[in-house]
């Protein structure tokens, strides 16, 4: 089977995009991506939009068709990919499938969400609507799942509370060098540890913000990519998996089986091992999630993930840099866009286009996009064409 390539990528500035709505954001990222690839809109066969809640947040449905018209991409086939916070990763999987199957020769994926016009409580409730009725009626939110899990993790593995704070410090520091990040401001550990409690033991700086933004990627067969450009990456592995809908039914709440299973399949597809991954974008919606994914992706033994931040391994100059983009924590988390934006960072790092946060000639990177509290997960491995 011919490999699937990514020949273009883009990302709008993330943050409070006052006066701009989902339609504007998607069109901006989609047009920028086509421009980056040097491909006309009428060449697009399939157009996917990763989005969680445009109807609930903005009262706008039918978004893929709207975008196809705004980009003049009709009669492209369109579909909306909703997998809550992992809609972007699921979109990558769908885009890869469309090209790998031969159904499409050129697939444009655009992820986006408009959120900042809602109060924090309203936005939190829209996100919490993914929970089971038995959870929702108790007022459970995704941040409260993080608090529950963080307390258990710290207790079970004797990890210091400060290690979670250091994740926030690292990712904010990386975000300073990302011109499109929502927060380009470094924070120190004391600030993190003294910020207001949101879900005990986690505090404000342990959480990502509410964000507007969009990101896009263009997929095609590698043979087509070679005709278009010398600057492309290949999707060597991609897979998705689920865990229980009811979070408390998991035997071990500190293990995300969706991460374990999706990465196992992605590694197998790419013929890679965790040791082959040179850097990764992880879904740090909450600082605790960086530890859980780090372990469940096979980068550390269970209960040892927190030691990586203490040892500096996940810093930009460490042996396995994590979230060079600033992560969701600093870059922002526009739900449907985040999984795509993670892959955009991997793409830019592989092509040497990451500016001041550029790593030293990486060839293999991974993105892990988590929906719910690990309810559904997509893991993607991208490589340079010549990666060994």
């Amino acid at each position: 089977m011919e490999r699937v390539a990514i020949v273009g990528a883009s990302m709008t500035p993330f943050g409070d995009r006052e006066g701009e709505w989902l339609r504007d954001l998607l069109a901006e990222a989609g047009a920028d991506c086509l421009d980056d690839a040097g491909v006309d809109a009428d060449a697009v066969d399939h157009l996917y939009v990763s989005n969680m809640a445009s109807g609930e947040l903005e009262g706008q449905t039918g978004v893929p068709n709207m975008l196809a018209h705004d980009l003049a991409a009709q009669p492209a086939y369109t579909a909306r990919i909703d997998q809550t916070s992992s809609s972007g990763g699921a979109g990558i999987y769908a885009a890869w499938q469309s090209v790998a199957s031969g159904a499409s020769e050129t697939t444009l994926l655009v992820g986006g969400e408009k959120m900042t016009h809602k109060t924090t409580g309203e936005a939190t409730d829209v996100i919490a609507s993914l929970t089971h009725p038995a959870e929702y009626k108790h007022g459970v939110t995704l941040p409260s799942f993080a608090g529950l899990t963080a307390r258990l993790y710290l207790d079970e593995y004797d990890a210091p509370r400060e290690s979670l704070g250091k994740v926030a410090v690292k990712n904010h520091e990386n975000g300073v060098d990302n011109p499109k990040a929502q927060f380009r401001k470094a924070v120190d550990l004391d600030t993190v540890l003294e910020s207001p409690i949101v879900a005990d033991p986690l505090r404000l700086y342990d959480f990502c913000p509410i964000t507007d933004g969009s990101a896009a990627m263009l997929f095609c067969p590698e043979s087509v990519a070679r005709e278009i450009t010398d600057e492309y990456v290949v999707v060597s592995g991609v897979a998705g998996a689920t865990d229980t809908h009811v979070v408390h039914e998991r035997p071990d709440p500190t293990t995300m089986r969706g991460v374990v299973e999706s990465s196992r399949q992605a590694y197998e597809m790419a013929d890679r091992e965790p040791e082959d991954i040179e850097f990764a974008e992880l879904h740090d919606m909450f600082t605790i999630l960086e530890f859980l994914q780090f372990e469940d992706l096979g980068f550390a033994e269970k209960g040892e993930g927190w030691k990586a931040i203490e040892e500096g391994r996940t810093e930009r100059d460490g042996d396995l840099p994590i979230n060079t983009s600033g992560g969701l924590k600093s870059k922002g988390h526009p739900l449907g866009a985040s999984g795509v934006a993670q892959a955009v960072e991997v793409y830019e790092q592989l092509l040497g286009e990451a500016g001041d946060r550029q790593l030293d000639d990486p060839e293999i990177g991974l993105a892990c996009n988590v929906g719910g509290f690990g309810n559904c997960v997509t893991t993607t491995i991208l490589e340079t064409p010549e990666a060994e």
Partner: protein
Amino acid sequence: MSDQQSDPEMTAYRYPDGSITYPGHPYGPGGEEPVGTVDLSEHTAEVVTWTTSTATPPGVRQPNHLAIVEFDVDGVPVRALGQLEKENVDIGDTVEPFHVEELRDPETGIREPESQDWDGFRFRPVE
């Protein structure tokens, strides 16, 4: 929201392999349909973990104390998530469920009020 003792059951489902889940599901492990129910309100449980959430959505008490607890039903572990009466527990503490008529205001959240029930069980320490 009014608290009151009443007779409602905290119904968990038992499956052919002996496992029990709360809430129940139409199909359990191996795709098997449930074979019976268990009323967890008659049991005590141990706190697995807890949190206090200060950023609560519309219609939810603030702060909202929550816990995951584990029941032991004749040697079978069954976990549940629920509100705590107060922030006065720690991991490993023993708690008991008590019924509450309305856990959050159904009229102010995004979910259709008629789509689910809104009563349930909170947990409090066993004296």
